[in-house]
């Protein structure tokens, strides 16, 4: 029994670790889509910041400078997206696709040219990574039944970005629902003309939303290479940006449901590895690939309107043309 319990705790622990970039990226997507801009470039922004963070952290031996570089890289890409589809009213999907393709090539090209390791950065050690924080007394209570492992395994022992990610959820909620900025942001995504009439610049709101999106994606990307992993690997974000996009839709563009969607998708990811070759009663052996595909399948089912309806902000995807 005790062993099973520990296994459950460890699975939840893994869930938390893999959910972190999903939460940050999904909230990033939520903010821009609430402002009326579709961003399928979450993946590219995370990959770029993962590379920038690892390269900088390796060179300076500081994870914090790495994080800074990661955020800068991601914000620059967000501004590029804005330049293309807010300023020049280009297609938002095309722009997102362009950023994803560009980054997927550029990270490896620069990686090969700078480090000659086939697109990886050298492994990061010591201060070049965000190391796990141990809560006070975590070691002491480890042997206390039930609560001990929960405290020492599940709550303690993560790096600071993990706690930051979970803190971001109430912050984004507060920003969206309890501030003037949030009200304007939501209005920009639903009815930009009304916002314009009220004397607020739609373009400025959308750029601000994109910068926030860039910052969150930058933290998410840095987490990949300097928190969760120890160095950059090619394509290391492995479609997580799209899972985050799915989670954002699954959470219907609201911060708290988005958090739960991310945890659900993270949980599926965490158990997929554990369930490999395990016989489950009634169902039999569950193919790992099925569990891996489940977030996508669930999102399609949701989008089809079979489990509730996901309604996007009304103006998302439509460039705003100011009337003369």
């Amino acid at each position, binding site marked *: 029994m005790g062993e099973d319990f520990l296994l459950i705790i460890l699975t939840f622990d893994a869930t938390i670790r893999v959910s972190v970039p999903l939460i940050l990226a999904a909230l990033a997507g939520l903010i821009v889509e609430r402002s009326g801009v*579709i961003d*399928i470039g979450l993946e590219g922004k995370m990959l770029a910041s993962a590379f920038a963070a690892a390269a900088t952290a390796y060179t300076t031996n500081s994870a914090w400078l790495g994080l800074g570089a990661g955020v800068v890289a991601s914000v620059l890409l967000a501004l*590029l997206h804005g*330049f*293309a*589809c807010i300023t*020049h*009213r*280009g*297609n938002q*999907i*095309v*722009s997102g*696709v*362009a*950023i*994803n*393709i*560009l*980054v*997927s*090539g*550029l990270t*490896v*090209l*620069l990686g*090969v*040219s700078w480090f000659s390791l*086939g*697109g990886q950065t050298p492994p990061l050690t010591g201060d070049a990574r965000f190391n796990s924080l141990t809560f006070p007394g975590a070691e002491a209570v480890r042997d206390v039944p039930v609560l001990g492992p929960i405290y020492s395994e599940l709550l303690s022992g993560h790096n600071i970005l993990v706690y930051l990610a979970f803190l971001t959820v109430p912050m984004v909620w507060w920003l969206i629902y309890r501030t003037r900025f949030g009200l304007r942001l939501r209005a920009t995504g639903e009815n930009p003309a009304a916002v314009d009439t009220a004397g607020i610049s739609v373009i400025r709101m959308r750029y601000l939303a994109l910068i926030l999106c860039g910052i969150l994606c930058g933290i998410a990307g840095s987490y990949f290479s300097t928190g969760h992993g120890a160095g950059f690997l090619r394509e290391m974000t492995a*479609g997580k940006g*799209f899972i985050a*996009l*799915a989670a954002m*839709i699954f959470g219907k563009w609201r911060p708290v449901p988005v958090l739960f969607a991310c945890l659900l998708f993270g949980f599926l990811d965490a158990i997929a590895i554990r369930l490999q070759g395990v016989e489950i009663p009634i169902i039999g052996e569950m*193919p790992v*690939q*099925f569990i*891996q*595909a489940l977030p*996508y*399948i669930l*999102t*399609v089912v949701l*989008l*089809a*309107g079979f489990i509730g309806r996901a309604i*996007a902000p009304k103006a998302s*995807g*439509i460039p705003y043309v100011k009337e003369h």
Partner: protein
Amino acid sequence: MRTKQKMPPQMANGSAKLPTWVDIGLLPLINVALAFVVSGLLIATLGQDPFEATWIMLRGAFGYEESLGYTFYYTTNFIFTGLAVAVAFHGGLFNIGGEGQAYIGGLGVAIACLALDQYLPFGLLLPICVLAAALFGAGWAFIPAYLQAKRGSHVVITTIMFNFIAASLMVYLLVNVVIKPGQMSPESREFASSAWLPYMHEALAWFGWEVAQSPLNLSLIGALVCCVLVWGLIWHTRWGYEIRAVGANAEAAVYAGISPSKIIILAMCISGALSGFVGINELMGVQHRLLLDFAAGYGFTGIAVSLMGRNHPVGIILAGLLFGALYQGGAELAFENSAFSPDLIVVIQGLVVLFSGALSYMLRGPMERLYLRLRPPPPPPIASVEA
């Protein structure tokens, strides 16, 4: 009206102020040129000579018979996926699921080959395989299309999801079902030679023309036939007219008696079928077995090809040739100079999508002002003649 489709800007009719040759000739060329200038600057910042790199790539792509074969072989895939994206574009739909549709199309080809290659001669097997590729590719596009048409789910998101679902499905099938017994790597058994599409060097040898060996096979002819068919379909049939009408304005199309949901499904299925043909080129033409990731990247490159080719078959052939040359030349460049990884092509591809697609409006305004200043003065109004 449930199908609220956002129109890609490339679909919008060009500016009324610019003559056609500027709009569909000069502007796209300048945009592509910009992408290459930025690529060149990037190469220069890496401490390499962009002109030398260009020269190596050109020589690597067109310099000798074998390289030409490789270039055309890549071009074949890009024509298929480029046409696929273009057909959906004409219907106002953005199909980014080409990747998954090509993958599943290949599954169809492989099933047909593995089931029938012992029994049927090539002449009978080929049409069955072509049909299987089309059906499987179209089938994989059908679900997102149906959901867009009938349930209003955004086709961009669902096709992205379907790419990932296809990838998982194929790993499952290859690892658990079609893997050749007693083999470690997830591949099917090799098809019997009755399922091999003749290579171009073999076909030309029948006519006494000896060329170097390359993966180029008869699929290229199929791709060119598809170009003609798509051209005919889009501009010379009722279906094509309806697809364009829905793409231009779905709500207006309803008043012309067109059912947008029917057309959305039709356009997406044709698009999926075209992507599926990548399976013919890759599996029947070159690999002769089903394997993982054979469609890697071709579906996404199709987006760049279609944008650059302005969704027209002729443009797509030219853009497909350019990307084929980039793929082959880029591989050659990476081989000759270890400072480059083949990923340079991916960067160039991203820049092309950026400049030809997302930023395609950037230069239109300045271009219009420039043209208005430079154009010949208009003839004097009639009133002044009377006076």
